């Protein structure tokens, strides 16, 4: 018992449950996943978990154009979506910051999409953009803009566009809320001084507001990057990667290879690629975040 009472061990005792949970539910499964990506594991033949095939899964993956398409599509999708969310979130925050009456209510309304399950957002947008019952096509026809409904979720470009739209609708809020908090925390004096010195609105924004907001932008990107994989939920209910793989992302393709085709070994190899992608993403924003926090502490 003396060990437990030693204050040197207190932090480790406090952290023990958290470490145990992460090791049991994340670390051990990841080790198994890594191992099985080198085997011919097939769900229907459990004994294949022990059949070591070296790097053959990875070779097969990197020689498969469908995989490269999904990987490139995933990276493009994330880049487009995150940039749009950041810009729109910034615009929304600046807009709400200008409003004086009813600002609290507005802030609450902005938070609305944050409560939505991604699968719900996917359903909502496939309902709106459905070519049979959807509001968008019905409205366009009733207004006489088009004669025939547009099958939004069938065409390669329009389907990807609809998915990006749904993703942006869902995640712009978090940027807006965090950037608004940044605007509230901003001291008023530098801005006023700049105006007195004759800066116009754009110059004030570019040289005073934006540099101050940068740490908040990185915080928002870091928080957002923790969860990029949830786009799977949306795509799963909207198109499930179809039609003919035109909206396939790494995550939907992985689920198909693993569960429908039962090629668990191959799917785990894809899983590792997707994990490296996510980790690289988060690590990049986390580094930026730490740097900008240090910067904020230095000026505070």
């Amino acid at each position, binding site marked *: 018992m003396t060990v437990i009472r030693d204050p040197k061990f207190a932090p480790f005792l406090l952290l023990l449950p958290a470490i145990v949970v992460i090791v049991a539910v994340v670390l051990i499964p990841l080790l198994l996943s890594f191992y099985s990506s080198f085997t011919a594991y097939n769900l229907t033949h459990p004994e294949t978990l022990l059949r070591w095939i070296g790097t053959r899964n990875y070779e097969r993956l990197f020689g498969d154009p469908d995989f490269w398409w999904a990987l490139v599509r995933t990276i493009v999708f994330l880049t487009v979506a995150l940039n749009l969310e950041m810009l729109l979130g910034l615009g929304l925050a600046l807009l709400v910051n200008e409003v004086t009456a009813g600002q609290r209510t507005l802030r609450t309304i902005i938070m609305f999409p944050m409560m939505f399950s991604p699968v719900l957002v996917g359903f909502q947008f496939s309902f709106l953009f459905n070519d049979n019952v959807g509001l968008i096509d019905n409205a366009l026809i009733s207004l006489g803009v088009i004669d025939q409904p547009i099958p939004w979720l069938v065409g390669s470009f329009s389907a990807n566009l609809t998915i990006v739209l749904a993703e942006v609708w869902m995640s712009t809020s978090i940027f807006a809320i*965090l950037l608004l*908090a940044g605007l509230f925390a901003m001291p008023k004096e530098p801005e006023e001084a700049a105006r007195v010195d004759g800066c116009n609105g754009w110059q004030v924004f570019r040289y005073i507001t934006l540099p101050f907001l940068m740490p908040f932008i990185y915080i928002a990107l870091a928080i957002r990057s923790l969860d990029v994989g949830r786009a799977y939920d949306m795509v799963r209910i909207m198109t499930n990667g179809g039609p003919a793989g035109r909206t396939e992302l790494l995550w939907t393709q992985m*689920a198909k290879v693993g569960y429908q085709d039962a090629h668990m070994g191959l799917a785990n190899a894809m899983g590792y690629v997707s994990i490296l992608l996510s980790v690289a993403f988060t690590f990049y924003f986390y580094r930026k975040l730490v740097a900008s926090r240090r910067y904020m502490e230095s000026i505070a």
Partner: protein
Amino acid sequence: MLRLGVVVCVVVICFPGLWVVLAAFRPNVEIMTKPPVWIPHLTLENFEAMLGLLPNVELAIPVGHYFRNSIVASLTSTAVALLIGTMGGYAFARYRFRGKAALFVAFMLSRTIPGVALSLPLFIIWSRIGLIDTSIGLIAVYVAMNVPFTIWLTDGYFRQIPLELSEAALIDGCSRWVAFWRVEFPLARSGLASAGIFAFLTSWNEFALASLLTRSVASKTMPVGLMDYTSQFTIDWVGMCAMAVLIIVPAVVVTFILQRHLIAGLTLGAVKG
């Protein structure tokens, strides 16, 4: 100009959700009609059908079971993650130890693993040890998902509280434990509330892992149950809308009750951490 911009933003944010809610109260024939009907008739029949209250309609999807499974999984995992995560956050905020920075980053990186990628090995292990299609199996996963972010938020919050306050309590003869409960815990309550909302929303809305690790009424949750409708012969749009309303209502209620903490916790905890 400003007012117009605000109106446009509010419409874009609110409209898609409200349209689904409205459809949940309309008869299916009206949705399917060509040319479209623009003046809605409101009815409760979709909800009655969903909950099996209509005598001549067979209950297609056991929404009641899914709702119960969702509540059990979300509340339990939130409570456990909050307890474990707060302990961890306190350790990070109040102690120096070797490997602290690396451990913190490791926790955060564990959160970035995409759900589908994590589901593959979990599916193998959970099948072997009998946790597949059980609420316990799902709760364990949700606890692991929520612990890192809880640590992040509570760490930031505990660091806000001046060390002198708890030191004063220690000098007055309190034990570390009593000092925590009397001084630090009440001051960090707002941070805990926001961590709680995030944990609840994450679990309540989670789909990827739940859809791959559950398969029957024993453990399927609401978001997974929503997909039941798409596997039927014809898509019951209004039925899906009614179920969507049942998914969104608890999330909205929880968020609005605690929303003051949500913004404060997220910004303070994340920025000053």
